[in-house]
């Protein structure tokens, strides 16, 4: 216990001594993790807002509840017969409810009052070519079972492809900045060792165990990493909070679930700690040979 207190105390003393370099390392961890976390939240927002339009959904045909299910299925058969249709799928009430739950995961009040029976069934259609949607739409509007038809707008397709590009650029930046952060941490550890080389030399001389010498430096790196991670998580959670307060119409939402934020927030803290550990291990490698 006393040893643990000593080791932690040493780490904090050392952090204070090199405050400027430590700040640089913490900032680097902060920027790279905030970018990664931000990209993740952005991706999640896009996914939530385009949930119905993924996996090649081009048209959603909402069906009338006052028409019997056999009529729905007959319509599905008919749709599958169209030349323009590549695939079509019947989306019943339970599937609709599953989707609804995911869409409004963070609004339990809404989930509670919605009865699966109230949700509309639909047919999800993938076209051989999205430009043909007008023909199909026109043909189907005359059907008695059809309530309304939603078309995947060009905007959504554009959004999805922009998201893909942004995601890969973001990933590249995260890798670069993450590397920079680790190298910076390694550097602060080297400076800390250099500042205390006399002390470390004497510790070795009197037979201090290797881990006894190393642990304060390792801790120092891990603390830097976790600090950076905490700042990143804090910034993104705060940013997300303000974004979620922006008034939007019901179907566009700038809000991911609290569960998502907590799960990834904890993970990003761990990432920070891991980056610190890797960085300080690198910094220690050369200097603490026996």
């Amino acid at each position, binding site marked *: 216990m*006393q*040893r643990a207190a*000593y080791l932690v105390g040493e780490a904090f003393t050392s952090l204070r001594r090199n405050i400027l370099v430590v700040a640089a390392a913490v900032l680097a961890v902060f920027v790279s993790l905030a970018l990664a976390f931000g990209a993740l939240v952005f991706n999640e927002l896009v996914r939530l807002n385009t949930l119905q339009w993924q996996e090649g959904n081009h048209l959603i045909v909402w069906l009338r509840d006052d028409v019997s299910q056999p009529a729905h299925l007959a319509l599905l058969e008919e749709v599958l017969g169209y030349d323009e249709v590549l695939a079509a799928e019947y989306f019943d009430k339970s599937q609709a409810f599953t989707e609804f739950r995911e869409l409004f995961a963070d609004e339990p009040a809404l989930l509670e009052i919605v009865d699966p029976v109230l949700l509309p069934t639909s047919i999800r259609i993938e076209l051989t070519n999205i430009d043909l949607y007008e023909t199909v739409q026109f043909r189907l509007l005359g059907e008695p079972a059809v309530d309304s038809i939603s078309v995947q707008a060009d905007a959504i397709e554009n959004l999805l492809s922009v998201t893909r590009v942004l995601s890969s650029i973001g990933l590249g930046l995260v890798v670069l900045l993450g590397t920079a952060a680790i190298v910076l941490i390694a550097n602060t550890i080297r400076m800390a060792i250099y500042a205390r080389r*006399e*002390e470390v*030399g*004497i*510790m*070795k*001389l*009197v*037979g*201090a*165990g*290797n881990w*006894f010498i190393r642990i304060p430096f390792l801790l120092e790196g891990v603390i830097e990493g976790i600090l950076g991670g905490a700042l990143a998580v804090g910034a993104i959670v705060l940013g997300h909070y303000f974004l979620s307060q922006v008034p939007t119409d019901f179907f566009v939402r700038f809000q991911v679930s609290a569960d998502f934020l907590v799960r990834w927030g904890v993970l990003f803290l761990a990432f920070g700690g891991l980056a610190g550990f890797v960085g300080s291990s690198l910094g220690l490698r050369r200097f603490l*040979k*026996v």
Partner: protein
Amino acid sequence: MIRLQDVTKVYGGGIVAARDVNLDIRKGEFVFLVGPSGSGKSTLIRMCLREERVTKGTIWVAGKDITTLPNWKVPYLRRSVGTVFQDFKLLPTKTVGENVAFALEVLGRPKSVTRRQVAQVLELVGLATKADRYPRQLSGGEQQRVSVARAFVNRPPILLADEPTGNLDPATSVGIMRLLDRINRTGTTIVMATHDHAIVDAMRRRVVQLERGRVVRDANEGGYESGYEAGFEGDDEQSPSTAAGGV
């Protein structure tokens, strides 16, 4: 207690610091390593601490072959060997008491044990009243006493001293030698590298003389001078760094 068998050390650049050194130091002995600068005294001491590795040969310390000792066990070797150096190696930011206690703290000794042993050893070296001073407030001789106290606080069976009087005036040196002698009388084996003639001549202990990495004399109750001139014959393969050796 310490045994060297055919020990050779060649540094990068071909500088030979030890050449087929054979030496057997028994428990409780007090041995002087003498010879000019560059003759290999410090290298021998550093090899016994595994600060340097031998190029060839074997060294046993306290019954263990330390040339094949895995790195993670080296700290345990150093706990059984106290060390004193010419430059004291004290931490300027810690008091005398803290400097000595440091040696026990890094071993994880409980605070109560540390306090008691530090008090005892400071008493032994005659600095009991100066435990709260900082090294810069002490004279050179006192600082070296602190360093001896730190080396001995753990009661190691062996004490290695590399020019412990090198920075001290003759009168102060005598005090340090008395202290080392007293520690030796407790059964601690002491090996001391020095080129202080007066001390070696006065103590009349075993003297091992080195010249360019070779043991050229090993005499019980010896003096510093022996008339042995082998070292000055001119050995061309040696670097010229030994020129200023001796006095």
